[in-house]
């Protein structure tokens, strides 16, 4: 089930909200958990029991860790917990990739391939396994006490607003909210506005752009002209942003409707003046996770040599790339970003500072280039596409042929860069971070209802629209 679907918007969500608020306050977590299990079981029925079992095991392992006074035992239990979580992730997400490469090598040395049953990827595994690791680590580091009730722990992992595609909520950020949150009507409304805004970003912008982008990226790159190639990849860059940030908005919005405050996940990433800044604005919770649980344990910036620092950076981004998908193109994607991060540490940041705001354009270009490897799985196809981009064989483009697509491209471009202006920043603050007066509430409510109705109409017309990040 996806948020941007009729079954979610018109059936699951209203029934959930009704059940949630009719439930006595003390029991609301159970209602939320029940609906979350149903939500997950809808999409991955064969995996849900397996998931529940691993959650229970993990809960008691961490509880045992917390009870231990000896550091060795604490590390031992932490190791088991991380092993369970990473083990699940490695097995379900990367085993196929591993076997494909083993068989490739075997083929190279003229050995028969190993027979292997293809493993299905459970949706959301990359997110909830990371979330589980934050719990283990934050308890180990004594940042926060563990949860006493296993159902509350289940809820932390499986809460449907953010389970499938984030934001990755660190345990310490939400621990107190699980047991002590307060639902307020004004927050419910703010959540509703945020949900509708996210839904509009996904359905009215991302999904419209996706239709044309998919057509372009399914064409033959060898005969593609540069105009089409650039439209395709820039379109994909906007599509990905509005799709993913729209989803995050919806998750944050639903959370607020039931009293949760999830962390922000995007901060106008395309106005970044460097790749380093980009990663402070794009999928923020993921960057925070990788920084706190991988980069810092490796030594972070406090290593003895610059060589080690650059290695750390590059290694973290290699793994970041791999996290996005189990294939070599994602490794290249990560390495590409890591390369520029290292370059920025070396000298490129100074160059960006010198050229001022134009660095936004160069940074955006680097991001767009990286998207080629993010989107196109086969290496030779990606190279062929790059060839089309840089053939400089520009053909004229008729915007009248597809006005809906081009209108949404302009809308996407506008909202991607509008915070470069003061008015844009003020607008953003208004929609995301303001406490509203009565008139503003009425206006926003009407706007949200209009967006919701348009989205429902569009979903019925366009059809099912899966999230891109569901492959994770």
């Amino acid at each position, binding site marked *: 089930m996806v948020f941007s679907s009729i079954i979610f918007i018109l059936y699951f969500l209203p029934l959930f909200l009704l059940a949630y608020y009719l439930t006595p306050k003390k029991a609301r977590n159970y209602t939320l958990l029940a609906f979350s299990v149903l939500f997950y079981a809808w999409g991955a029925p064969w995996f849900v029991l397996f998931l529940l079992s691993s959650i229970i095991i993990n809960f008691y392992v961490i509880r045992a860790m917390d009870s231990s006074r000896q550091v060795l035992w604490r590390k031992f239990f932490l190791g088991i917990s991380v092993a369970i979580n990473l083990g699940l992730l490695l097995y379900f997400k990367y085993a196929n990739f591993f076997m494909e490469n083993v068989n490739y090598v075997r083929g190279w040395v003229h050995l028969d391939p190993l027979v292997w049953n293809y493993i299905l990827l459970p949706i959301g595994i990359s997110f909830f396994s990371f979330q589980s690791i934050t719990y283990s680590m934050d308890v180990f580091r004594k940042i926060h006490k563990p949860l006493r009730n296993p159902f509350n722990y289940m809820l932390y992992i499986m809460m449907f607003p953010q389970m499938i595609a984030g934001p990755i909520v660190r345990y310490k950020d939400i621990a107190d909210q699980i047991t002590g949150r307060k639902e307020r009507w004004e927050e419910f409304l703010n959540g509703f506005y945020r949900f509708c805004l996210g839904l509009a970003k996904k359905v009215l912008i991302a999904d419209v752009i996706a239709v044309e982008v998919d057509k372009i990226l399914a064409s033959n790159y060898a005969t593609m002209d540069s105009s089409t190639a650039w439209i395709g990849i820039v379109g994909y860059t906007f599509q990905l942003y509005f799709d993913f940030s729209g989803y995050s908005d919806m998750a944050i919005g639903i959370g607020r409707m039931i009293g949760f405050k999830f962390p922000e996940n995007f901060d106008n990433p395309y106005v970044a003046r460097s790749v380093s800044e980009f990663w402070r604005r794009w999928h923020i919770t993921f960057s925070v996770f990788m920084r706190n649980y991988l980069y810092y344990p490796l030594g972070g910036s406090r290593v003895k040599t610059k060589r080690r620092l650059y290695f750390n950076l590059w290694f973290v981004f290699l793994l970041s790339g791999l996290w996005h998908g189990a294939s070599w193109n994602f490794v290249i994607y990560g390495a590409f970003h890591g390369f520029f991060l290292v370059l920025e540490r070396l000298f490129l940041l100074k160059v960006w500072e010198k050229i001022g705001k134009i660095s936004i354009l160069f940074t955006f270009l680097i991001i767009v280039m990286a998207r080629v490897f993010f989107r196109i799985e086969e290496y030779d196809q990606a190279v062929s596409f790059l060839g089309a981009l840089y053939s400089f064989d520009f053909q004229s483009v008729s915007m009248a042929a597809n006005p809906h697509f081009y209108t949404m491209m302009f809308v996407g471009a506008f909202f991607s860069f509008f915070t470069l202006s003061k008015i844009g920043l003020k607008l953003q603050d208004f929609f995301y971070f303001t406490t509203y007066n009565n008139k503003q509430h009425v206006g926003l409510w009407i706007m949200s209802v209009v967006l919701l*109705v348009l989205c429902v109409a569009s979903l019925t017309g366009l059809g*099912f629209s899966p999230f891109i990040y569901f492959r994770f």
Partner: protein
Amino acid sequence: MKSNKLHITLVVLTALLLILPLFQQIFKPFKISELHGVTKEQELPKFAAADWIDSEFQPRFHQYLLENYGFREDAIRLYNQVRFSVFGLSSNINVTIGKNGFLFEPWFIHSYYGRNFRGNDDIEEKVKKLKSIQDSLKAYGKDMIMVIAAGKASYYPEHIPDKMRSEKSYTNYQCFLDNLEKYGVNTIDCNQWFVDAKDTTKVPLFPKTGTHWSIYGAQLAADSIVKYYKSLSGKEMNEVKFSGFTKTDQLKYDDRDIEMLLNLSIPLDRDSLAYPEKEKIKKDGAEKPNLFVISDSFFWNIFNFYPIHKHLFNEVSYWYYFSRGVYPAKTETDLQTRLSKSDLIMFMSATSTLDKFGWGSVDSLYSFFHKEEHNVSLEEKLKEHHEVHYEETYEEFIARFKEQVRSSESKTQQMMEKAKKRGYTFEEMLDKDAHWLADRRYKKDKDQSR
């Protein structure tokens, strides 16, 4: 305290808003007008644990909810209207918005440019069989006519949108005409006649908002067909005279069928069309032959609006695409009996359906007349109960359905989107749909025959 009251009010309104479609679906307090057009609908799937585990139940159930939630029809009309009014786009891939508000079905445009040309050898073979059927029927005292109905893209090429224009190449229409003339098949070319008459007729022969020739255009065509048959057969038949016309912009459904497919909230601007007033002239001793028509949908405007029934012809049997339905329903569905009863066998095809012309009928009739037998009379053929089974078998139906989808860009795209939606490959979805349709059709036939 005032702000809390407002918050609560808005929260309640939000809850009501979200619950309203479900309320409408269950209790249907509001009357909502239906959508136009034919679609395959998802029945409410029965729940089975195994189907849930295999993720088979979920997409079917979701599809069912998507097709049945309250106010769905209004949502679709809103979406279509926004796309049309703001962007000038059709949300229905079976409708192309032409210039100046003229609507087309895209395959008319493709066939006009020759993009679906099936090849001269194929067409020549088909026409040779037609000629053979014509001669065989003539031997039994029956006549055969091939009618090429007019195509809207031929009539209104100036309104074809720029993005669909290309160089014209040799078309099915031109190839059929060349071969029909070459082999001497009785032919009426309404397409060229319509194009020639375009500048002289007082009212359009094609509606702006419809895909078929207008009701008026169809009446003129029918009139010409009857006159042609009279000269061919020498029969003295009753007559139909057009005594006047009513011009109106309140068009009958058949003259705005594509517009209806758009499912808009606001009706389109329409041209006025003419609806003829007809006078039936009875002649003493008039003959009323029996008519057997194998045609695409272009015969409907004649079948429904021209006085062929009882006045001109005694019995009219219309086999829609040969095997998709027989009209009127009370007429028999046995090919041998229909052939033996009929005096005139008429094939009709619009220029856009010539790529599939015959729909199995030409091969069926040809094989009926050319089995290895020696000078057998039609009556004797019938007595020997030759099983020329016009009805496709279950497997033939599936093969034909699949071929139709594969050979149509729009149908292939629809099937691919459907497959993607439900997590199947294209071939898997095609196979499932083919079997689903075949099961319904052949089970229904079995139920009806009990």
